[in-house]
Structure formats: structure tokens, C-alpha cells
């Protein structure tokens, strides 16, 4: 993962033999043992590790669930109930998987907002950031298709509404929708291809996540000051300092996860999805999962369907352009007084959009959705370019060590000097 030379020295004969043929232990050593990380990382920096754990949980539970699930419109609902009743610990696997999707999104949203606040998307981390946006898109596609698999009412009607979004594309819209459905309505062929893709996409996420880690290990971690590592004093080796901190954070996160899995397993789901899919009966309210609600609000904010769909996709795509939309030279929001206010206003905007996504699209809610959609895009398209030019940032510390220990104590110990110069380049 890391392109800087490894400090790993194989000791045993077997390790020497392997290392001279495939230097994989050295790769792991330089990436996850000796890798220098800023000494001032907060718990917000542990969400990358949490996300890795969640991805693995989803993969393992998902693969086992697939051994017992039947992807057929007539049997899917029953096979899920078979898992819940007759498969040994099937209820645990399914509840972990279903709630795991929600907790995956909780972690990824915290991870993204951390990146937004501390300017982790800025040079030299643009590719790292864009890979993250791709992972988010893959996650959304995977989660959406996964929700269709139990073939309950919300599965069926959610699939119908969302796939129909593509019908607004001029000229080829209907063809694309028929292609997605494998027919002229959501049915058994749709379920089959969604199952196939739901199994495929997580491995693509895994692949892009590896690129994401690789792209992280070239410039190294950003940190709360945004100031790069300048000397060994600014850094600590990944192991044991971050490994123990990550593990502590992971266990705390899993405790919250367990609270839901064991005590509130259906809290984040929809009761309607325990009603078998019925093409003849439309549920009173078709609502996406909570993690899609802000985007759903943007979709419904405009009366024109095509424009709504464009806006919805743009609301995610705009993230990929953020490294170039933000003109500020200062990374960390901690040193940007106006940015800091606007950032929290943006967080509130996203939460309000989420709430509006759960409301009926009528009356005051539509107007509010329109206002907050404008605010959402204004953050990226107006605030980010202008702030960098107008805002006067606070003075930056000379180094991470100075920022966290103060000028007097800046002699605190860290990594041996030289071992932890900022990886690769002085970004």
C-alpha cells in the first residue's frame, strides 16, 4: 500500500525466503506497522478503520446469507423467513446484515463530514477523495439493491420508484428501464439481477477501498491542524498507537451496533417490508431507507422529474469536484472562522433535507425542500469558491507538535527522526 521503502527486516529463514520472492510482509509492515501518522489524530480519524470492519462484517454475513437465500419472486420472502427461523443463528446474520448497512452509512457519513471539515479533500489528496466518492456511490447502489432482496412491499415499490427514475432520461430512458427490469415491470428477472449485482458490488467496494488506502498512504493522513508532518516529533508509528486507538473506537462503535442488532433490530427498517411484495397493492407511503432521505428530498424538491433526477445525482457528483471548488489554501476548518460556521450550517442543511425527505412532498415541505436544496448546492458552488478568496484564516501553527504541545514543550518525543518524515512528498 505504501510506496516508501520498508524498514522491515525478515528474521526467520521462512520469512526471508518469502520476502525475497514476494515482499508482502514488508508491504504490510510499512503500511500498517511503521507507517507514520500524525500524533494529533482525533477519534474522527478512526472511522476509516471502523468502515473496514463494517465492510468485512457485511461481506461475511452476506456471503453466509446468500447460502440460504433464494432469489426468486415466489420464494425470496419465504427464504428470508426461513433464515430467521430455521437457519442456526440466521436471525443474527440477517439482523447484523440489515443493521450493518445502516451503520456502514452512519460511519461513512461521519467519515465524509470529517473530511469536509478538515479539508481532507485538498491537494495532495484529491484522488483519495474521489475514490471515496466512488465508494459512496457503490455503497448506495449496493444498499438499494440489498433492500430489494427480501421482496417485501417496500422492496418492490422502492425498486419500482427508483428504477423508474431512469425513465426520465430523454430518448433512451424507457429502454434503460426495461433493461434494468429485464421486462416491462419490476419482477423476477429484476430480483435476480439485483441479487447478482448485490453480490458483485461489495467486492468492487473492497477493490476501490484498497485503492483508497493506497491513495491515503502516498500523502499520508491529514490531521486536525491540516499542517503536514514536518519532523519525527509530529508523528507516531501506526502500530501500536493508531491500532490500539482504532480498536478501542471499533469496539465502542460495535457496542452501539449491538444495541440495535439485539434490542432494536427492526427500528431502522420499514414495517411494510414484512408484507410480501404485491404488485397490485401500492403501500400508503413509499419511503427510502434513512440514509437516502436527503437525496430523496432533493429529488422531490422540483416539480420537473428530469430536473429532479439530475439534481439528485448532481448532489453526489458535486462532491467529486470539491477539491477544485474550494479555493482556500488552508486545509483545516479550525483555522477558518467563517468556514467553520458555514460547515455547521451545511451539516444542519443535510439533516433538514433528511427530515424533509421523510415528509410528504406537499405544501410548506416542498418550499422548504427547495430552499434547503439551494443551500446544499450553495455550499459547494458559491461558499467554497468565494470563501477562499474572502476569508482571512487564523495563523497556522508551525507544526503539529507546536499546535498540540505548545511552543515550549515542542520537544516531546515522537517517532525517531528520519523514520517519520512525511511520506513521499512535502504536500
Amino acid at each position, binding site marked *: 500500500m505504501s510506496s516508501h521503502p520498508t524498514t522491515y527486516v525478515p528474521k526467520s529463514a521462512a520469512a526471508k525466503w518469502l520476502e525475497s520472492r514476494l515482499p508482502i510482509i514488508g508491504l504490510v509492515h510499512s503500511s500498517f506497522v511503521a507507517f507514520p501518522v500524525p*500524533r*494529533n489524530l482525533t477519534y474522527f480519524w478512526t472511522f476509516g478503520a471502523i468502515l473496514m470492519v463494517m465492510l468485512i462484517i457485511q461481506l461475511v454475513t452476506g456471503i453466509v446469507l446468500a447460502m440460504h437465500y433464494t432469489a426468486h419472486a415466489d420464494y425470496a420472502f419465504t427464504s428470508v*423467513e426461513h433464515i*430467521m*427461523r430455521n437457519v442456526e443463528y440466521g*436471525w*443474527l446474520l440477517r439482523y447484523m446484515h440489515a443493521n450493518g448497512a445502516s451503520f456502514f452509512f452512519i460511519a461513512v457519513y461521519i467519515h465524509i463530514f470529517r473530511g469536509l471539515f478538515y479539508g481532507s479533500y485538498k491537494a495532495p489528496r484529491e484522488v483519495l477523495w474521489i475514490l471515496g466518492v466512488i465508494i459512496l456511490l457503490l455503497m448506495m447502489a449496493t444498499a438499494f439493491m440489498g433492500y430489494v432482496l427480501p421482496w417485501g412491499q*417496500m422492496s418492490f*415499490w422502492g425498486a*419500482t420508484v427508483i428504477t*423508474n427514475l431512469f*425513465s*426520465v432520461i430523454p430518448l433512451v430512458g*424507457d429502454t434503460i428501464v426495461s433493461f434494468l427490469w429485464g421486462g*416491462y*415491470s419490476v419482477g423476477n428477472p429484476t430480483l435476480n439481477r439485483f441479487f447478482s449485482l448485490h453480490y458483485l458490488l461489495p467486492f468492487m467496494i473492497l477493490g476501490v477501498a484498497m485503492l483508497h488506502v493506497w491513495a491515503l498512504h502516498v500523502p499520508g493522513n491529514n490531521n*486536525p*491542524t491540516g499542517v503536514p508532518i514536518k519532523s519525527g516529533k509530529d508523528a*507516531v508509528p501506526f502500530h501500536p*498507537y493508531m491500532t*490500539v486507538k482504532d*480498536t*478501542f473506537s471499533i*469496539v465502542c462503535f*460495535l*457496542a452501539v451496533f*449491538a*444495541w440495535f*442488532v*439485539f*434490542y*432494536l433490530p*427492526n*427500528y431502522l427498517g420499514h*414495517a*411494510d417490508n*414484512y*408484507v410480501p411484495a404485491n404488485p397490485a397493492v401500492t*403501500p*400508503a*407511503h*413509499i*419511503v427510502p431507507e434513512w440514509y437516502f*432521505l436527503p437525496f430523496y428530498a432533493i429529488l*422531490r424538491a422540483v416539480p420537473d422529474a428530469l430536473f429532479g433526477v439530475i439534481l439528485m445525482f448532481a448532489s453526489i457528483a458535486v462532491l467529486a469536484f470539491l477539491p477544485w471548488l474550494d479555493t482556500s489554501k488552508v486545509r*483545516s476548518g*479550525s483555522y477558518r472562522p467563517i468556514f467553520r460556521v458555514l460547515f455547521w450550517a451545511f451539516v444542519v442543511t443535510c439533516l433538514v433535507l433528511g427530515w424533509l425527505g*421523510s*415528509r410528504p*412532498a*406537499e405544501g410548506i415541505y416542498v418550499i422548504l425542500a427547495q430552499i434547503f436544496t439551494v443551500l446544499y448546492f450553495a455550499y459547494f458552488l458559491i461558499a467554497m469558491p468565494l470563501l477562499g478568496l474572502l476569508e482571512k484564516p487564523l495563523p497556522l*501553527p508551525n507544526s503539529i507538535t*507546536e*499546535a*498540540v*504541545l505548545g*511552543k515550549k514543550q515542542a520537544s*516531546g*518525543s*515522537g517517532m525517531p527522526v528520519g523514520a517519520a518524515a512525511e511520506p513521499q512528498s512535502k504536500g
Partner: protein
Amino acid sequence: MRDQDKGSRTMNKTLFIAGFFAASLAFSGGAANAAPGGVVPPRNDWSFAGPFGTFDRAQLQRGFLVFKTVCASCHGLEKVSFRNLAEEGGPEYTEAQVEAFAAEFLVDGGYDEFGDPVQRAATPADFWPSPFANYQQAAAANGGKAPPDLSVMAKARTYERGFPWWITDVFTQYNENGVDYLSAFLQGYVEPPEDFDPALGNWNLYYPGHIVAMPNVLFDGAVEYPRDAQERPIVPETVEQYAKDVTAFLMWTAEPHLEARKAMGFQVLVFLLVFAGLLYFTKKRIWARVGGETEGHAAG
């Protein structure tokens, strides 16, 4: 074929508009079946609520009795096997009792040596036989609306909690929305408003929109409950009691491993919290080597 293509395209559009319209009416909170303006069902004390909740065996057995005597003539319970009734964490009938329940039913027994279909007595391994052969028959026998299967009904109904309760529910672990609704629904066949036209259906206080195909089925004394030594019923034979008992039974059919889940949850949480505590102090120890943790950006 071309015409069909065209037709389906128009249907795509219609479906899209319909979907969009339905979606535009949407609101969240998993409030699938609670229409706006619906009456909020009263809260009950369920034995299976909370982190240490367990089913009350006697209540599940009474609930099964109500189901068997009243509900089963119209509703299926197709996800439940007879053997489940004897399993740990459920009504825990004896094997012999379950065999006797099963033996009351004849089920499809495959084919005999001449290839003719045969019937046989049900065994504990069989699923609870549905009262109707298929959906169409069920609908035809019930005025056009097939009575839904009850296996997961306790999780398939809910009502909207609203702000701030949807937040406090996370901490209080309230997720008995479904059973509170079902129990209220079964007791909800109260006197309809004066202007109600009985030709529309049946009036229920808690049903979203109030007009429901299902008639009132519970009456005081309708099901005979177990008696004590003086030949008096141990619990009252009232609509309220029947409704609660059968609802508890349906919670079990919807979530047969509820007790195991909650018990394991406690073990898992204790483990994770102790482990987190140990990790916290390990982390402090390790970071002490570099003069303690130095988080954030400000000198401190």
C-alpha cells in the same frame, strides 16, 4: 408485439407518475400503516419488552388457543411449523401435545404407487396448514379481500411515533409498535360514528382510515381459558385479555428467537463494554510512551 411495447412504455410512464405521486405522499418513521389522523394505540406492558424480556409461556399458550379457535378459520400461519410450538423460547408445549395438534390436520402426502395424490395426517415437521387452498379462494370466501397470513404480522404493522419519541425510543428500547397496534386493533371495534354507512365495511377505531374488511371476531367468553381447581378461569375471558394474549402469541410467531436474541445481546454488550474498558486503559498506557495523547489542534 409493437403495440404491447407501446402499451408497456405508456405503463412505464404511468407507473413512474404513480410511483412518484405515491412517493410524494411519503413520510418516514416506518409508519407504514398509520394514516395521518389515525388514533395512537395505547401502550401495554409486554413481558417480552426491554433488554431482559421473555415470553410468558401461559400467555403464549392462551394466545395460541385464541388463534386456533378464532383467527385460524380465516388466517394462515404458514411460516410456523407445529414443531415450533414445542421449541424453547415459545409456548413450549410438550411433544405429545404438538403431535396431537398436528394430527387434527390432513395435509398433502405426495403420490401413491399409482401416481394418484394422497393425503396424510400432519406431523410436527409440517407447517401450519392455511385455511384456504390459495389466494383466490381466500379472497372469494371473504368478500374479495383475502385475510393476510399472520406469521409476521406483529412486525408488519406499526404506527407513527413522531418527534421526539422516535429518538427516545432508541434509548428506552421501545419497539413494541406493532403489538401495541395489533392489540388495540383487535379491541378497536367500538361504536362507529352515527353517519357511518355499514355497507362500506367494518368500523375500527385504530385501523388507518377506520374502514376495514375484517369484522369483529372477539367477544367476552368466546374462548374457554384454562380453569383453576374451583373451575374458574385463571385469567379473565374478556376481549381485552384475548386481544393481548393472541397478540403476544403473534409476536412469538413473528420473532421466535426473541428470547435468545435478547439474552445474547446482553452477553455481547457486557463483553464489548469490558473489552472497550480494557482497551481504553491499554491505549492510555501505550500513548504514555510518547507523553500521552495529544489530540486536536489547540495547545492544551
